[in-house]
């Protein structure tokens, strides 16, 4: 597919034939703190297509993580509805896995134990096979019996991603998954995530405050404003993969989002 065709298919609504996987309608969230009500999210209307990669981008405190937690079923919106496959989200579900920063890895289990955590309903043979498959996919061969505290941050993050992939979810929610990694590891992990996304074709919702990360990874960037969090703009990224991150189009999109957030592209 040429760049222009790809652009045509992604500018309008979600990619991949337009089948809507996740839809939020007028979602609002109000937290109660010390007797005061604090609006965190307001009027969130968003459609995410099946197999689409969407980044939620915004400054810290803009409610993007809250929105992601609500989509995953950990929080219930104060108003509005979140539907996945036309079904209202009522709680966490193994079909939709939330990937925390590496902190979500269980420190009392080995790499194998973590990745196989959601597979207890499988037979032993199947489980071992599935675990090995994903250990290979995230490049952790040789560390099957290691414990998380013996691994680097990037390796722990791989364990979490593999643990999520192993239960074969349709949707993955990633909350600043590479935020705690050094910049080189972060770049490598982005490449790996794209490679995995291309083979597994999950719907991915990815929270970040890093504009470059959002433009490098996603089909569309949802730019959010803070207090209360609202959708400011949705920017389709019409650059084909693998993306040339010094191409004029890349810089144009990135600078556009920078301007949108109110930052000049000069320090």
């Amino acid at each position: 597919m040429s760049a222009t065709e790809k652009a045509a298919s992604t500018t309008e609504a979600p990619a991949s034939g337009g089948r809507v996987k996740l839809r939020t309608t007028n979602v609002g969230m109000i937290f109660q703190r010390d007797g005061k009500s604090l609006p965190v999210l307001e009027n969130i209307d968003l459609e995410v297509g099946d197999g689409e990669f969407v980044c939620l981008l915004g400054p810290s405190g803009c409610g993007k993580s809250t929105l992601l937690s609500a989509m995953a079923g950990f929080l219930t919106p104060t108003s509005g509805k979140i539907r996945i496959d036309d079904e209202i989200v009522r709680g966490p579900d193994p079909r939709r896995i939330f990937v925390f920063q590496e902190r979500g890895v269980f420190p009392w289990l080995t790499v194998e134990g973590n990745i196989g955590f959601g597979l207890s309903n499988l037979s032993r043979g199947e489980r071992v096979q599935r675990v090995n498959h994903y250990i290979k996919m995230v490049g952790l061969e040789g560390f099957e019996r290691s414990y998380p505290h013996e691994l680097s941050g990037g390796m722990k993050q791989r364990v979490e991603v593999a643990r999520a992939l192993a239960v074969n979810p349709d949707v993955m929610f990633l909350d600043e998954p590479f935020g705690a990694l050094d910049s080189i590891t972060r770049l490598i992990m982005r490449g790996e995530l794209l490679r995995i996304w291309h083979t597994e074709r999950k719907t991915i919702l990815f929270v970040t405050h890093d504009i470059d990360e959002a433009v490098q990874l996603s089909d569309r960037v949802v730019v959010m404003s803070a207090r209360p969090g609202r959708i400011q703009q949705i920017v389709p990224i019409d650059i084909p993969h693998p993306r040339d991150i010094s191409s004029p189009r890349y810089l144009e999109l990135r600078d556009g989002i920078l301007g949108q957030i109110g930052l000049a592209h000069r320090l």
Partner: protein
Amino acid sequence: MNSSNGIHKMERWLWPILATALFLLLWRYAVTWTGTKVFPSPREVELGLAQLFDSGVLYHDIVDSLRRVAIGYLGALCLGIPLGLLFGWYPALNQIVNPVVQILRPISPIAWIPVAILFFGVGDHAAIFLVFLGAFFPIAVSCVDSVANVPLIYRRAGSNFGLTPPHLLVRVVFPAALPQILVGLRIALGIGWLVVVAGEMIAVDSGLGFLIIDSRNSGKRYDLVVGAMLLIGVIGLILDVLFRRLETIKAVRWGIRNES
């Protein structure tokens, strides 16, 4: 590298041994200087213990004390861990029983001795009950606190994989809380060992606690009193060292701070 490690290793033993030798020396000369006729010197203690050991009495006393601690402590584990997990898991339930627990907890197990004898009569059961009481509260309270401190992120991750609450408790909350629980279990074992000595002084006629009180009452054998005291200290140390080996298991080591 190797030689400096060797020196380091030697120093780790050298200074404690020197300190112990100094302590024994001070003790020995303090006995001479004060001219006491009652308090024994280290040598007299050694001879007294050897005599007891040869007669087989010492062995039985040690085994009896350890047996009482083992039974009482196991009972406290079996009841304290499930209850602690339950109350930690349901904070509302915990709020209801917490006032009662907080009132019972500061009561020294020694204060329970008359009640223990009333319940169980003079004998093994009373001593075991005291150990149980001494160990139960630290175990239960540490379980409640540890469960309450399990990061929300682990619970969320667990429930995301479709775990029901009982599974979440067994597969996520308990292992996540275990390192902190172990700290409570270790403290409880220490308390159990403290309490059994007190219990044996009153409730039974065997064990190291009984050995102390009996040696004093029958002929003021202070060499045996002090000997039994030292033995209690050494066995307590051994129990603690053995327990700490549990903390090196990899499934819990992640959560144990490396303080001495």
